[in-house]
């Protein structure tokens, strides 16, 4: 479904990605692992087509989604027309809006009002704490709740493919587990997922497949279980 081919990307004069290629098939949950600065976030931002200065410049290669090249597509259309959503690093929830408004604003471009109601119930079913805090300003939420809201918001935008950037960052181990369980649940219900993680242990437990990045290149790939048992990975990421 998503097919990234020979993607070269740079920020100004700094080459961030040196020709990476990977695929995500429909219904899969794929993890993108690697240390800080490996180019994981850059990869996600390139797919989302965010405008500068946030986003990097693609100099070569292609990003095909369901056969359409996303390069040249404005970011809001990547969401509304192509159905790819991003839960960005650091959550980026709208702190001055209420929890409910954060979810509502995500439905801006949707044209299926009948399903929207069902999706609200779905989000509140997955994250009951958001339902309790519905009318609270979002910046009063705890870090974990904000992460839930960011995920709920991506889900409410009605996309079939969600990219997540370091969802476990800054969370307690217990909350991390809970978030990944919810991700798995969403995935099993049909949402395709590409998750960037530093916590390889966690990601490999839940994902089907994984890619490992190092300084702008993909250095390893395979089924999650295989990678989890790979001695090199064990040494580098699993301690």
């Amino acid at each position: 479904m998503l097919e990234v081919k020979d993607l070269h990307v740079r920020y100004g004069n700094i080459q961030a990605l040196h020709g990476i290629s990977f695929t995500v098939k429909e219904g899969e949950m794929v993890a993108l692992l690697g240390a800080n600065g490996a180019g994981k976030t850059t990869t996600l931002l390139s797919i989302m087509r965010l405008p500068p200065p946030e986003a990097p410049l693609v100099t070569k290669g292609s990003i095909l989604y369901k056969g359409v090249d996303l390069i040249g597509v404005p970011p809001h259309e990547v969401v509304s027309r192509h159905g790819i959503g991003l839960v960005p690093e650091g959550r980026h929830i709208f702190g001055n809006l209420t929890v409910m408004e954060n979810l509502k604003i995500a439905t801006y471009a949707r044209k299926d009002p009948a399903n929207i109601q069902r999706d609200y119930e779905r989000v509140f079913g997955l994250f009951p704490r958001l339902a309790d805090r519905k009318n609270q300003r979002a910046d009063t939420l705890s870090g974990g709740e904000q992460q839930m809201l960011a995920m709920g918001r991506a889900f409410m935008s009605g996309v079939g493919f969600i990219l997540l950037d370091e969802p476990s960052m800054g969370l307690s181990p217990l909350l991390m587990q809970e978030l990944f369980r919810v991700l798995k649940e969403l995935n099993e219900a049909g949402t395709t997922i590409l998750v960037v993680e530093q916590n390889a242990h966690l990601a490999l437990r839940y994902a089907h497949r994984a890619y490992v990045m190092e300084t702008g290149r993909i250095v390893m790939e395979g089924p999650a279980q295989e990678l989890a048992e790979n001695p090199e990975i064990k040494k580098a990421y699993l301690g």
Partner: protein
Amino acid sequence: MEVFLQNLLNALQWGSFYALIALGYTLVYGVLLLINFAHGDIFMVGAYIGFFVASFFLGKYAFHLPLDLPPSVIFLLTLLLTMALTSVVGVTLERVAYRPLRRKGAPRLYVVITALMCGLLLENGNLALLGASRRSFPELLPKAVYDLGGVSVTNIKILVIIAALLVFVFLETVVRKTKLGMAMRAISYDRMAVPLMGIPVDTVIVFTFVLGSSMAALGGVLFATAYPVLEPYMGALIGWKAFIAAVIGGIGEIRGAFAGGFLLGFIEIFVAAFFPSTLRDLISFSILLVFLSVRPTGFFGVARATKI
């Protein structure tokens, strides 16, 4: 007592003008963190467009309407058409002046300077195009003066005050209840995440300029109806004052624009009531200066890391 009520009424009217203009500053600032210094001149452009539209409807040009419209209908049509046309001017400024800078990631200071220049351009463009002679706005609404126990009230004053209150309710509803309004608030908090909601940022920005410019146009036509003398620099001083009102109220907040606008109106009118009117601006702005030094973010504003 009558004197007090009379002044109160005048203050409400002036406050309404300031509030209607201050809104445009505050809306654009809320969304772009840009002080659109051309906005006072958008008010002027609104008054002039209103003048031409009204003259057109009154049949002052070669073209005559096939039917005679009652003055109130002409007034309403003038108002609506002027709001629409002035919005076009406001959006054009955003398209040709501000957007290209935004695309290039220019620092906000440069955009503010550009806004200042756009204002000068509008003033001097008008001067070049229409000449320095003043124009008098046609009387669309026959003026009616009511005497309420010693306090004289004109229909226009009442109209201005009611219009400002309606605009307040309308804008608060738009910003609180509609998705575009939510997007306006969301942008000020986190611009990067807005497109991730499937929302085109430019649409929200254009919408903001439409709201701000049409309210300035409304203010312009009402102002010209109350004080029917038009000249190219009429927006400069009142624009500055409305900007100050927006800051006093807490820039970025709609209710702040109203609070600040009315406060400025009250201070000016009541200062002029007790002191020689030549000292009016000196005294009223000294009061506001003291207010700001005590509460730099205004009535409703919150401190932000960066301004300008």
